[in-house]
């Protein structure tokens, strides 16, 4: 744990030591269908594994219902996993007793999507920011106030805001408060669940900058959950793309945007609106909608919308395998060393 104000010169150096290792994580929801019908099982997160290195920003990307938010919440045990292991600095979080986990939360924090819903409307900013320090018994009461003022300044607010309630702030300011609450304990790892998607465009960039600065200053590791690919491209180091509860592609951010392997990733990237009216995008428009997670397709879950669907995709689910250096994807197109051939197919059809 770092002392406050300890700044590291370099900033975004990454190490290869994993701070968090997720293995075979599953989160299934049972939906009761009444007394005499069997329950429907929704596999919100279906057997995913990845690891996050210390100091990096790891992104979970996908469309609504793909399980990215559930993954973030399950990691922090805000919902209990169905099965699987999450090792944080070697300790398995999933099997920790409640109180031990609560104690450990000072190192694992979260920033929420909706800055309106995630702050208690009846509390003042001072109360909101004192709470983490109080429950983890850090500092004396007078030092706490000093610390709060310090953190408010870091996130771009000031001392005069202390006695105000959240409803007196704009969305961007509230998100700053939410971020202040997360970093005030000097955590090592922060799950940021769509932290800018509820904000106005002109405020989004402010908050992104703040998160980048804080990462340097406090050597934070981020799990950045987002559906906004341009933000993900800008600020993350590695990306896992999720579709219907599974990771379909996992690699470094630059590689993913330069050379997406999975047809879903390709479609997702191509669907991002152009940044200039003269930019002509080669667009893969997917047909149909995301299938209902309660009733996912057999085989590869993407086969119903995939432009390159093959016979075996309909029955056999592909595994996440390494198809290039540090580039994993789960797609039959790459499974039988046909890589070059299929690449040709993909690029000629795009």
């Amino acid at each position: 744990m770092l002392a406050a104000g300890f700044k590291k010169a370099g900033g975004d150096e990454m190490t290869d030591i994993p701070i968090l290792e997720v293995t075979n994580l599953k989160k299934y929801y049972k939906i009761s269908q009444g007394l005499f019908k069997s329950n429907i099982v929704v596999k919100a997160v279906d057997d995913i594994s990845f690891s996050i290195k210390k100091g990096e920003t790891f992104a979970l990307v996908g469309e609504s219902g793909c399980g990215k938010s559930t993954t973030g919440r399950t990691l922090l045990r805000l919902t209990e996993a169905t099965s699987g292991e999450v090792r944080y600095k070697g300790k398995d979080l999933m099997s920790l007793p409640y109180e031990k986990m609560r104690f450990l939360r000072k190192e694992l924090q979260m920033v929420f999507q909706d800055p309106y819903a995630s702050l208690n409307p009846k509390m003042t900013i001072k109360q909101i920011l004192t709470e983490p320090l109080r429950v983890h018994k850090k500092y004396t009461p007078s030092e706490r106030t000093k610390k709060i003022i310090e953190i408010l300044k870091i996130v771009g607010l000031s001392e005069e805001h202390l006695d105000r309630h959240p409803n007196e702030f704009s969305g961007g300011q509230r998100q700053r408060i939410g971020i202040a609450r997360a970093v005030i304990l000097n955590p090592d790892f922060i799950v940021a669940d769509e932290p800018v998607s509820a904000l106005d465009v002109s405020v989004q960039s402010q908050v992104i900058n703040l998160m980048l600065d804080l990462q340097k200053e406090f050597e934070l590791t981020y799990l950045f959950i987002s559906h906004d690919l341009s933000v993900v491209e800008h600020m993350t180091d590695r990306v896992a793309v999720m579709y219907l509860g599974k990771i379909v592609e996992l690699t470094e951010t630059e590689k993913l945007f330069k050379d997406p392997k999975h047809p879903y990733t390709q479609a997702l990237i191509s669907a991002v609106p152009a940044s200039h009216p003269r930019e002509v995008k080669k667009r893969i428009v997917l047909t149909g909608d995301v299938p209902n997670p309660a009733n996912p397709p057999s085989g590869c879950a993407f086969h119903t919308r995939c432009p390159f669907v093959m016979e075996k995709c309909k029955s056999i689910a592909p595994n996440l395998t390494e198809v290039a250096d540090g580039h994993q994807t789960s797609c039959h197109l790459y499974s039988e060393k046909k890589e070059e051939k299929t690449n040709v197919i993909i690029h000629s059809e795009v």
Partner: protein
Amino acid sequence: MSDILLEIKDLGIQFNTGKGPIQPIRGVSFSLKSGETLGVVGESGSGKSVTSLAVMGLLPEKKSKIVSGSIHFNDEDITKLSEKQYRKLRGNEMSMIFQEPMTSLNPVFTIGELLSEPLKQHKKMSKKERKEAIINVLKQVGIPRAEQIINEYPHQLSGGMRQRVMISLALLCEPKLLICDEPTTALDVTIQAQILELMKEIKAEKNMSLLFITHDLGVVAEMCDRVVVMYAGEIVEVAEINELFDQPLHPYTQGLIHSRPTNNSRKSALYSIKGQVPRPEEIGIGCTFANRCPHAFEKCLKETPPIFEKGDHLSKCWLQDSKRQAVMK
């Protein structure tokens, strides 16, 4: 009939809130040519949605009133229309697509019932003709199994499908003007791409005029011919689409374009506009953007800038004042 389908002149709207009246829209003027797609860009509180509601005559009756200006549609001032006259226009000559496709479709009616409503209102058709028209329009917006869908309820459809139904509802009477209020904001990226493609196709086919309201510059870049940029209830810039992206004149537009992650190198600090969008009650004298503007000077704080014209490119900023530009040179 002139080339201009919709012309808004000096529109001002007042809302009566518990804390006294506010003016979410002040002096808004723009025009929409027939066959054109005009983007209206702005953040929350910029007044873009209020403007569109005013055009549709859907402002909350008791709480708001138009205090100045006019809205001409087909050379007729529609601010003077009675509710009954308006009903003849709405859904017929002009239609609107809303952001949230779930809440804007009444859940107790089937898709078929929802879609037959405007036809009953505006067109004389037999039941059979209506059904055919509905199935046709559903097929046009790319809804599979249209014959079955008409007997289903909105909640049985996915978000993308619902938005398609909304579009088909708006298209039924082949309106001249289609107002889209953030039509893809609630949708996922891949579905957004589908819907945008669809709207481009339909527009090309029907030669409608589109008023496209959004906060997403990317969507604007894809869809629009011209753009109106709104900030805090005023228009700050109007320009042709390429011109806007190549040479934005107003510092707010510049900020919006520069702060997009794609226009910044990876991992670097993004260009950002400081501060917050002012609340309506905080707007005082001078330029509304002055407190966030990196180029603000004395005059900006004291005097509201007029609209400066540079060909078709309009901007409301003292930097464009020719006197000042002469001094700077």
